[in-house]
């Protein structure tokens, strides 16, 4: 008898293709897991509308679950994903990997607001600066540490 607990356990081994230290469960993009008539339906939600990793994530889920149970992956847009759904464990893993996890951010409608203070994931200094609001992928901004000079990615807050 396959339980949803088992499915969640298997999903916790599916890595995000762009940030492989995070699982899709850490990211909070798996919304629901249902088992209906011996078939599993996993509902996921995209991080950003144009996130190119979504197709691959779907395939990875199918690969992980198919040996255990017939699986269908569905996608839903509402409620829209927010970085608040990222697990604490996930944030810690991000930091260890060298990416600063999302911080509470100021209101985006304030122009030229002082950028959020993002501690350096290498030396933990708060003396860092934002290089660019947009980074290597849709979910990241680009920062640099003024203390140890390390450039780093910041997983920006989406709300």
């Amino acid at each position, binding site marked *: 008898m396959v339980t949803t607990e088992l499915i969640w356990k298997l999903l916790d081994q599916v890595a995000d293709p762009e940030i492989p230290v995070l699982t899709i469960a850490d990211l909070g993009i798996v919304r629901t897991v249902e088992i209906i008539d011996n078939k599993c339906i996993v509902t996921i939600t*995209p991080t*950003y*509308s*144009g*996130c*190119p990793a979504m197709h691959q994530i779907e395939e990875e889920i199918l690969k992980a679950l198919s040996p255990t149970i017939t699986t269908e992956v569905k996608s*839903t*847009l*509402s*409620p*829209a*994903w*927010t970085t608040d759904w990222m697990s604490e464990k996930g944030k810690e893993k991000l930091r260890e990997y060298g990416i600063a996890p999302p911080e509470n951010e100021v209101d*985006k*409608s304030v*122009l*030229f607001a002082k950028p959020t203070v993002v501690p350096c994931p290498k030396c933990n200094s708060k003396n860092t600066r934002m*290089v*660019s*609001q*947009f*980074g*290597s992928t*849709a979910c990241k901004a*680009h920062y640099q540490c003024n203390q140890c000079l390390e450039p780093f990615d910041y997983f920006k807050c*989406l*709300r």
Partner: protein
Amino acid sequence: MTVKEALYTYVVRIADDSLILGQRLAEWCGHGPILEEDIALTNISLDLIGQATNLFQYAVTLEDKGRTEDQLAFLRVDREYSNLLLVEQPNKDFGYTIARQFYFDAFRKLFFEALTNSEDTQLAAIAEKSLKETKYHLKHSSEWIIRLGDGTEESHQRIQEAVNFHWRFTHELFFQNEVDKTLIELGIGLDLATLFDDWKNYVSNVLQQATLELPSHSFKLEGGRTGMHSEHLGYLLAEMQYMQRAFPNLTW
């Protein structure tokens, strides 16, 4: 016109705006004035193309003729695209690109905010998702308007010229016809006229901070919504559709 037909047209309009502007911004890939802006413009492009994908996926279910989102995006002729004239205007230079983006983002933020209350749950869901991204876009374009306007003598003069040039296309942001009328009555679509004051206030405010003049000329151009485009769209489509036309059904 049935409600379904009206809704299809409505969804395709929003999708076409995102797709065509996304394609325009993608032309900056590898040509940005600085690396960070190259990345910013292409990130915004990706968000827009992602929004278009969600909208086209919804549109094909409304149409129910077995078409896919890719067929809608790549295999129509120019007269079948309903995007605004504004978004098909050439990039020209960074200032022109930012001015075009600024008018559009300011509208889009208000539009998606209001659309999250649509009686159509899928449209509301797409609006909710897209709004979060649009807030970043608007912050980006607004800050550049101010930097360039309140920058050097040359940047001031060039962004003012770009702001003046695109003004003639902003009237069309608020275009409405029987499609809108049908959907407004059902609480699905928005009365765009209700967004105008907020849009103009926001635009005036940012231009003022940028020490720029709000354009005063009343020369207006429209036609995109009904398929009457400028010559620029044809060239854009020729490039965008090339792969699907040359190698039909090609996939990655």
